[in-house]
């Protein structure tokens, strides 16, 4: 064997992981401009030395040969492009967009901010949209993930952020995980949850239709029928009220509308809920008692709660339980929506939403609007803009003429993809800013190559509102540039074309200058500076003053809306339910080794271990359909059809199949429907009716390889932990 010396780094750079919302701190070890090793500092929140497979081994996408290296201009049909200079591409974008403003006004734009880009990128993006394009049509994929949670929490308590920090998890007493496959979607958070159970004897209640890994650690697992969450939570509230387990002192001091609420609960008995959800009434009673009688109890949830036509109701039902028991505003309690993307919290915080500026300052508040008009030297639209889901329909109706997409891939992430693609084909002009070509940019008129997280500076805000630094570790790839620089170039050119007298300000020397502007306009961020982040590693906002320590848990003394409001709920569903024609329930989600639309994980070694989509199916259903693991199956809904292999596993309940949405060769969102929650506008990604039949082996890369030789795709329920 060759005795090679240990590789030593040219330099190591401390930065923040670009994958999920945990915000793990990591050191990139660089040799010859390649990240050859990723380590994690053991002394730093939030991950304390831990990483998951994506952070530790999945950063090789940064140097993948398919990275976009020059601007591209459409030259023929979809997917046909020619290389262009920056000047040519930027001028074309500025001229086209300016022409559209003149012809149809700013509200004919739809823009996607980016939950993967930095706070600084997103601040500049929404500033450009609002101050130059003159519209509030800016939104991002948070609409597709946590809009239900955000809307529910805003209605009930007035703030949508996770109320407690990751660091508190180890000291939990009782906690409920629902609609979150935490070990795969937030792997490092799941370590602290597991530790709370195993080391500190915390009680875990899992409420989830799928037999996720956390059920192995649970004291109690309520396996409800998909979509019946509200029934369970309402029945738990019923038990807490009936058995007088509620916290009278807290209710009297901190909440309102309690009396109406308890009247509304009367009919929601555990026996009624058992009929709806299939969960035995006795288990619902047990769960209610465990939660209410705990000294400290917390909720953690993910997409299973939010991505539903009743996502807002789900979040309200959870909030009702927290208000009823007073399990909020103390360490180890709270309402904790686990944010999906590295900077989905930060993108929302930076104003990447159609109705608010930074840190949720409302555009409809004249004083706030005036503050930003003064700072940006221009009149701004006071009307809330369109949400992501409304933008697609706007394009179809001709109301939206141009779209600017920064780092997102709506043609993988939108529901009912065929419909979304059809809508986007109606656009006059589309600009994509991305690090790779993806399904959306293939439809673009101009593609601008941007820098990945490893090639730029800035900040990300993780799931528990901790602002942390992102630092440049690699030189830019080809001619790619950081997103904020690209936006500033477009904005400046447009201001010139429009003859703007006093620029809104797009001449930033660096990202720190952008952050400084943000914090002066945002009381909640005022106390956070780059210098402080350098010193402290991270600061939890709200942080209103330079000597303020930051806020690891929220709502200690009051709620942003004053009193917490109990919301009386009705049970019902608008979801598409299985019927004789489409007899199976399809639910979608993520797997450990991949990331959302797959733009980053498929050009990575991660793809080698999980190279293709698989449909999870219960053994009873497999028996009925005469399928075994590895057979090809066609999955058809009223919207579309895909073909993939099946994996027979007890993870899925009978009658329900699960398909991850990362894989373009069997894009789950061709099947999902674009029905939305009326308040949150979030699509019903977890509920679609499908029919299944055995299919022939498709002509597809890797299809000839036997199933058991494809990476590590295997039935996780067969392990004993």
């Amino acid at each position, binding site marked *: 064997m060759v005795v090679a010396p240990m590789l030593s780094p040219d330099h190591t750079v401390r930065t923040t992981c670009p994958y999920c919302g945990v915000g793990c701190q990591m050191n990139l070890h660089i040799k010859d401009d390649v990240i050859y090793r990723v380590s994690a500092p053991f002394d730093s929140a939030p991950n304390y030395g831990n990483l998951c*497979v994506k952070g530790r081994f999945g950063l090789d996408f940064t140097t993948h040969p398919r990275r976009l290296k020059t601007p591209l201009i459409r030259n023929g049909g979809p997917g046909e492009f020619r290389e262009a200079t920056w000047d040519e591409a930027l001028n074309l974008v500025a001229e086209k967009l300016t022409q559209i403003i003149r012809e149809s006004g700013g509200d004919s734009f739809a823009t996607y901010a980016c939950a993967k880009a930095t706070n600084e990128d997103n601040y500049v993006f929404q500033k450009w949209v609002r101050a130059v394009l003159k519209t509030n049509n800016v939104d991002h994929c948070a609409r597709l993930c946590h809009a239900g949670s955000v809307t529910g929490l805003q209605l009930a308590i007035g703030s949508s952020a996770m109320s407690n920090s990751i660091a508190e998890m180890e000291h939990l007493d009782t906690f409920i995980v629902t609609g979150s496959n935490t070990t795969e979607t937030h792997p490092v958070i799941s370590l602290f949850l597991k530790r709370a159970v195993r080391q500190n004897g915390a009680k875990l209640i899992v409420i989830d239709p799928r037999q996720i890994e956390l059920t192995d650690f649970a004291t109690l697992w309520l396996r409800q029928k998909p979509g019946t969450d509200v029934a369970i939570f309402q029945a738990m509230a019923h038990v807490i009220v009936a058995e007088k387990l509620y916290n009278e002192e807290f209710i009297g001091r901190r909440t309102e509308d309690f009396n109406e609420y308890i009247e509304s609960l009367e009919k929601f008995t555990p026996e009624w809920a058992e009929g709806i959800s299939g969960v035995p009434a006795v288990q619902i009673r047990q769960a209610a008692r465990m939660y209410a009688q705990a000294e400290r109890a917390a909720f953690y949830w993910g997409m299973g709660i939010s991505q539903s036509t009743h996502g807002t109701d789900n979040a309200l039902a959870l909030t009702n339980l927290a208000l009823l028991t007073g399990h909020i505003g103390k360490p180890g309690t709270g309402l904790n929506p686990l944010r999906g993307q590295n900077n989905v919290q930060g993108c929302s915080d930076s104003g990447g939403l159609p109705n608010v500026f930074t840190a949720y300052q409302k555009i409809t508040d004249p004083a706030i609007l005036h503050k930003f008009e003064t700072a940006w030297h221009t009149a701004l639209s006071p009307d809330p803009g369109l949400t992501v889901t409304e933008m697609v329909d706007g394009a179809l109706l001709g109301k939206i003429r141009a779209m600017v997409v920064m780092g997102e891939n709506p043609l993988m992430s939108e529901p009912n993809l065929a419909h979304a693609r059809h809508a986007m084909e109606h656009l006059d002009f589309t600009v994509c800013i991305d690090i790779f070509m993806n399904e959306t940019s293939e439809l673009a008129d101009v593609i601008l190559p941007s820098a990945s997280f490893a090639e730029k500076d800035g900040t990300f805000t993780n799931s528990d509102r901790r602002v942390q630094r992102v630092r440049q570790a690699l030189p830019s790839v080809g001619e790619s540039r950081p997103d904020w620089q690209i936006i500033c170039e477009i904005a400046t050119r447009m201001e010139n074309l429009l003859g703007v007298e006093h620029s809104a300000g797009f001449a930033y020397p660096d990202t720190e200058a952008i952050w400084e502007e943000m914090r002066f306009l945002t009381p909640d961020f005022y106390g956070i500076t780059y210098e402080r982040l350098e010193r402290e590693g991270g600061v939890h906002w709200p942080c209103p003053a330079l000597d303020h320590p930051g806020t690891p848990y929220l709502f200690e003394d009051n709620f942003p809306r004053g009193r917490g409001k109990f919301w009386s709920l009705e049970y019902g569903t608008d979801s598409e339910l299985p019927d004789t024609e489409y007899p199976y329930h399809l639910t979608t989600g993520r797997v450990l080794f991949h990331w959302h639309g797959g733009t980053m994980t498929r050009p990575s070694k991660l793809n080698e271990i999980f190279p293709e989509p698989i449909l999870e199916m219960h053994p009873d259903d497999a028996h009925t359909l005469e399928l075994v693991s590895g057979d090809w199956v066609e999955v058809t809904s009223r919207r579309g059809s895909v073909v993939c292999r099946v994996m027979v596993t007890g993870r899925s309940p009978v009658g329900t199949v699960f398909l991850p949405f990362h894989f373009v060769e069997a894009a789950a969102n061709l099947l999902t429907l674009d029905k939305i929650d009326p308040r949150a506008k979030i699509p019903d990604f977890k509920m679609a009716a499908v029919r299944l039949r055995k299919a022939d082996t498709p002509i597809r890369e890797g299809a000839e390889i036997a199933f058991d030789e494809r990476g590590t795709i295997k039935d996780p329920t067969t392990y004993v*932990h």
Partner: protein
Amino acid sequence: MSDRVTLTIDGQEITVPAGTTLLEAAAQLDIEVPVICYHDATTSNGLCRVCVVDVNNGRLLQAACVTACANGGKVETRNERVERSRRTILEMLNSAVDLHQAPAIQTLMTDYNADPTRFPDAERREHALLDDNPFYMRDYSQCVLCWRCVQVCAEDAQYTFALTFGGRGFDTHIATAFDIPMPESPCVFCGQCVGVCPTGALKPKIQWGMEQGMTPDEIRQSTRRPRRRREETEEG
């Protein structure tokens, strides 16, 4: 006062909460006690014995990572007895294990004047290089059996329990159950094991490839070919 104990370490008096280990107390006095198997993030087991210190001139040296401070104790962290013990431990370790990619242990060897040729006829722990997954390589010829990887795979971090021990006595080695390849084990490839490995036994595949002189593209295109690699290993 019974919950606090007072002792002297290398002549300096210190008072610490009962239960504090000698290693922690020494660190508070800025006295560095060398360690190999110890890691802040893992449970201490006193395996490598390189952290042994002299307590009250007792018959046996005590492993500082697991020994609690006792009231009135008189501790010497580096006297002749301690030095000789550490030197012998390092020489024995070096006689059986390939330590060329363990710079911290190499530094200790120099610091303690350990003779790398002291046990020339010792049997060496030889293991074939294991390349069974896209993310990391396992070269147990470089393994000092510190247990850290097994511990972070289990209750010290990941709760995955993919790693365990195989063999007995001198043949003890880190393994999966029944030596199945990693992709067939419960491994989730978090790499916490790689993060705590004190030697070159566990390392990212990209790092390994670059050490072998491969280009990033060659590493990217390399897929798992266990059979071919086994032959290579036999030749080497």
